[in-house]
């Protein structure tokens, strides 16, 4: 399937440099980004479903019969499409998040909140034929950006998606509706357009009943790319 790709429209995206976020001023290039043509090299990309085996879709426990992690149980679902709304089947989604106390499983996390031995902190799956996905997890806690002295990150889940090509590779963070810390988060508020900002926030879906009764949240993703209509001879 051939896709066409336009550069990201900055109005739909986060600012590259953010006041009070010093690293954004140390790492964002000064020179203008160079426009380039897209060739086969950029239009292709890893076939993610070949490279990865499925990981856990349930972050709330280490093993299928193990005890659950502490926290509000969540069902996280959604759908991945291209810009025309066509589903992206076989996309690999990786997620990671803090535990309910706001602690990540990572050697760079120096926050002295407790580790939860029953929480995996990460998941991976491949989207189905309709581009749909579903994870189970627990609600992540807020945590402080220690260097800042004031900034608490609101609860959020990180998403990394490998779609069809090098061009639609996508990484983001998704926030929870109604969180007071959303109002002061430097990253979430670096998206100036209100509608675009809403696309970084889960939609509440009521109760997911099943083996566990979880709070349902949904987030659909639109990756860059439009399917090209084959030229008629």
């Amino acid at each position: 399937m051939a896709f066409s790709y336009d550069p990201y429209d900055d109005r739909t995206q986060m600012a590259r440099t953010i006041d009070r976020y010093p690293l954004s001023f140390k790492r964002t290039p000064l020179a203008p980004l160079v426009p380039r043509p897209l060739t086969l090299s950029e239009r292709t990309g890893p076939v993610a479903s070949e490279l990865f085996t499925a990981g856990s879709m349930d972050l709330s426990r280490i093993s299928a019969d193990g005890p659950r992690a502490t926290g509000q149980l969540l069902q996280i679902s959604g759908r991945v499409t291209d810009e025309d709304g066509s589903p992206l089947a076989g996309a690999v989604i990786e997620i990671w998040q803090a535990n309910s106390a706001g602690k990540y499983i990572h050697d760079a996390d120096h926050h002295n909140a407790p580790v939860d031995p029953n929480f995996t902190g990460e998941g991976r799956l491949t989207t189905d034929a309709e581009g749909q996905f579903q994870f189970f997890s627990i609600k992540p806690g807020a945590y402080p950006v220690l260097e800042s002295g004031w900034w608490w990150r609101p609860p959020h889940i990180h998403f990394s998606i490998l779609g069809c090509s090098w061009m639609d590779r996508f990484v983001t963070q998704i926030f929870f509706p109604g969180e007071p810390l959303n109002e002061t988060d430097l990253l979430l508020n670096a998206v100036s357009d209100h509608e675009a900002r809403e696309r970084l926030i889960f939609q509440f879906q009521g109760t997911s009943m099943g083996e566990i009764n979880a709070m349902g949240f949904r987030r659909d993703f639109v990756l860059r790319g439009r399917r090209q209509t084959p030229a008629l001879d």
Partner: protein
Amino acid sequence: MSVSPYCTIGPFFPASFVEGRDDLTHYRGGTARGQHILLSGRILQEGGAPTRNTILEIWQADSAGVFRHEGDPRCAQADPGFAGWGRVRTDAEGWYRIRTVIPGGYRGEDGTLRCPHANLMILAIGLTRRLVTTVFFSGDPDSVRDPVLDCVTDAIARRRLFALRESDEQYRFDLILRGENETPFFLD
């Protein structure tokens, strides 16, 4: 439909998502054809300070210039022992290390020649979006013609997109995100 907004990868990308992804030369029990190399370098921020914990991803053709992707008309001939894609994380001094092969050049369907290169992307705390660039492996930066490389018109900046050959098996490529000797990055 409007595309979803990017956000920074932050500092806590799980180690398990990176482990074992630094070697493109062995894939599904096979060994890649062509010249195996260690491609390594440092990723530096303004003032030349190292960036620790930066995620670098690579995508490139195999040694014959074929991509393992249905978009490549020669996909069926792709080297079965070559992964094509990899992901690494920088250490405390900003070093990354990737085992790969010298990619082959190829001629596109419109006849345009792409010279040997690999696509790179950088994700890090402080970057709200990915940065993309291309590293080239050809010998003479000033004489090579390539439709992507030629978009960088400044001769000195252009040379910064070439890996330095240290030996047949070792190539060095530093990425300077901002400031003096800044690496050219492409509009994404």
